[in-house]
C-alpha cells in the first residue's frame, strides 16, 4: 500500500483494480479518448506510437496527472518507450510505483 502525503491528505491505493481504473480515467481525461474506447483497452493494446493523441507533449501531461492521482513520483529517467508501449506496460509500471 502506498501512502503519499500532500498537505495533509493521504492517498490510499491498495489494489491493481484501482490502478487500472485510474490509468483508464487519466487516458480518457487527458487525451480526450472516448470512454468506451478506453474501457475496451486490453493489456496488449499499444499506446505510444499507436495513439495519435499521445504525442510527446501529451506524455508530459499524462504522467503528471497519474502522479497526482496515484500519489507517486516518476523520475524523468524512468520515462522511456517501454513503459508507454502498451496499456499493460503502463499499468504495471504505475502499480509498481503505487503499490510499493
Amino acid at each position, binding site marked *: 500500500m502506498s501512502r503519499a502525503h500532500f498537505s495533509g491528505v493521504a492517498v490510499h491505493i491498495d489494489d491493481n483494480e484501482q490502478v487500472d481504473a485510474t490509468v483508464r480515467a487519466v487516458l480518457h*481525461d487527458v487525451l480526450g479518448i472516448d470512454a468506451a474506447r478506453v474501457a475496451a483497452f486490453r493489456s496488449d493494446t499499444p499506446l505510444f506510437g499507436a495513439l495519435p493523441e499521445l504525442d*510527446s507533449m501529451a506524455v508530459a501531461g499524462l504522467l503528471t496527472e497519474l502522479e*497526482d492521482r496515484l500519489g507517486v513520483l516518476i523520475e524523468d529517467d524512468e520515462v522511456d518507450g517501454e513503459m508507454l508501449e502498451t496499456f499493460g506496460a503502463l499499468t504495471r509500471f504505475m502499480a509498481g510505483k503505487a503499490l510499493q
Partner: protein
Amino acid sequence: MLRFGPASGPVVIAALPLFEEANRTRAFVVTILRQLTLRGFAGALPDLPGTGESLIETEQASLSDWIAAFKSATVALRPTYDSVHVIAFRGGALVDRDGAVETRWHFSPLPGRTVIRDLGRIALAAAKEAGTHFDPASLTAPGLPVEIAGNRLNRALLAAIERAEPIASPPLRIVRLDSDPLTADRHLPGMPLWRRSDPDNDSTLAALLADDIAGWIASCGG
C-alpha cells in the same frame, strides 16, 4: 482587459493558469465569467504582461510584474463596483497576492515548484523527440531565456515561480476536481482541461463552478 456583464454591483476578476495551461483553459474561464453574469456578477479577465494581448515580450515578464499588474487591475475595478472578488485557476493563484479584494476563490491551485516541474517535463519531452539533451534543473538557473512549447521564458521568472506558494489568508475557498486527492473545501466532477493538448470547454462544470462562486461570495456577505 476583457469585461463582462453589468457596470455596477459586485465584480469577479479572473486569474488564468500560467503558460500553456492558460491557452487550454481561456475559453473555459470565459464561459464561467459569462455564467456569472447570469447570476448578477460583472466579470473581468486581465492579460498579464507578456501574455495574451499584452504588448510586452513574454521573455521580459517577471513574477513581480505579474503580481503588480493583477493588483492594478483589481484597483482599477474598485471605483466602478461595490465589491471585488478574485477567482484564480491553477498557477493563477500565484499571481493573486496583493490585490485588496473582498474574497478569493481558487480552483485546483498548485505550488510554484509543481508549475516548474510540469514545464521541465514538457521541455524534456520535446528534447527527447528532437534527440537533444535537456536538464530540467537548468530551467531556474541563471542564463538566457529558454524556449518551451513555442514561448521564450525568462529564467528569473521561472526561479521566482519555483519559490512561490498560493496565498492562504482568508476569506479563501479552494475547489478541486473529484479526481484530485488534495484537500479542498469542495470537490466537483469534471476533467482537467488544462492537461488537454487542444483547448476544450465544459459548460456543465462551468455552471457548477459559477454556482459555487456565487454561493461563496453570498456567504461572505456579497
